[in-house]
């Protein structure tokens, strides 16, 4: 069961990696603004799965922090890109 959860976490991270390739390459700033959201959602899923798989309940707190800070980073990106 733990192996399955860790595999799922790895799979989601692979999806995030693929998404990052596309987003960071994107020719406009508009595409790159999305990276905070991609990493936020994917990172939270990976952290929750790793927390359950490796028996580390503190990772849920890390996921909480990541959710807040990813939202904040996205706001900072949008603020800067929309202003220029």
């Amino acid at each position, binding site marked *: 069961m733990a*192996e399955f959860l*860790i*595999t799922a*976490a*790895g799979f989601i*991270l*692979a999806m995030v*990696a693929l998404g*990052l390739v596309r987003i*960071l390459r994107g020719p406009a*700033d508009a595409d*790159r*603004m999305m*990276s*905070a959201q991609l*990493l*936020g959602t994917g*990172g939270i899923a*990976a*952290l929750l799965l*790793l927390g359950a798989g*490796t028996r*580390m*309940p*503190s*990772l849920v*707190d*890390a996921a*909480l*922090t*990541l959710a*807040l*800070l*990813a*939202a*904040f*980073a996205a*706001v*900072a*990106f*949008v*603020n*800067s*890109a*929309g*202003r*220029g």
Partner: protein
Amino acid sequence: MSVALALDAGLALLVLCVAVWTIGAGPTFAAVVGFVAFGLLLALVWVRLAAVDVALTEAAIGSGVTGAVLIAAAARLRLTEAPSAAERPSATLRLAAVVLCVLVFAGLAGLVLYPANPAPTLAPAAAVHLPELDVGNAVTAVLLAYRSVDTLLEKVVLLLALVGVWSLAPDRFWGGAPGILRPARTDGALVLLGRLLPPIGIVVGVYILWVGAIAPGGAFQAGAILAAMWLLVMIAGLRDPPEIGHRWVRLLLVAGPAVFLAVGLAGFALPGGFLSYPAGHAKPLIIAIEAVLTLSIAVILGLLVAGPPERERRR
């Protein structure tokens, strides 16, 4: 190859690729986005290394608050982007950079691949005294009991950094308010976020501070979360940045290090050493110090991102 090993290898490769891309990215905005992505992925690496406190700090400060500082800096540097993109460093400079990087890499690789055997560690000695302190998290014990001088000095360094940022303003603006961070047009979604997220963020921040005594967390991470929420409120336009000459701003900035210092100096009188805690009172003192420290850190980090004052002080 076990699943965990494959995960770690993939994560390491991903972090490397994002780092290389960030260095080579052209526009400054793209590079900052890459840096924030790198920071968030690095937090995952710290999690895999079982250092969740560091992971929390990396996510909160390393990519969140630092990303905001870099974005603000990139916005200020917009006019210099074209000239700096046209610069080409000389071949000798590039060669020197490559040699330096290879040397650093070789040094680090040597340290990791051929550690001293048995590896020197103070972890058992640190864990011995945890019950006396009544603190369950060894990291908090190290930060606020064993090596509290370092933590105190770090907070003073943060304050000095803030004063350094303030000193970038012209003399006549000293004591005024930092420039408004608001977007060009009011955005309903942003105002909604600025109203809904900060209360949740404050609860999470206080929770992270409280749980830091027995589980990963602590003052620094909690302060960064609170700072991010305060910055969100300011960016959404719901509150103006405060004038840095205001008394309460100055008070909040200094309160954390001051309380820390006061407890430290009181240590001379009671148990007999700077920053020693009287027996049995360690945990309440640690919690009191951390609580005030969190407020100070939040205000310091928020003002660091807000930048130097850009208006005169209203008398």
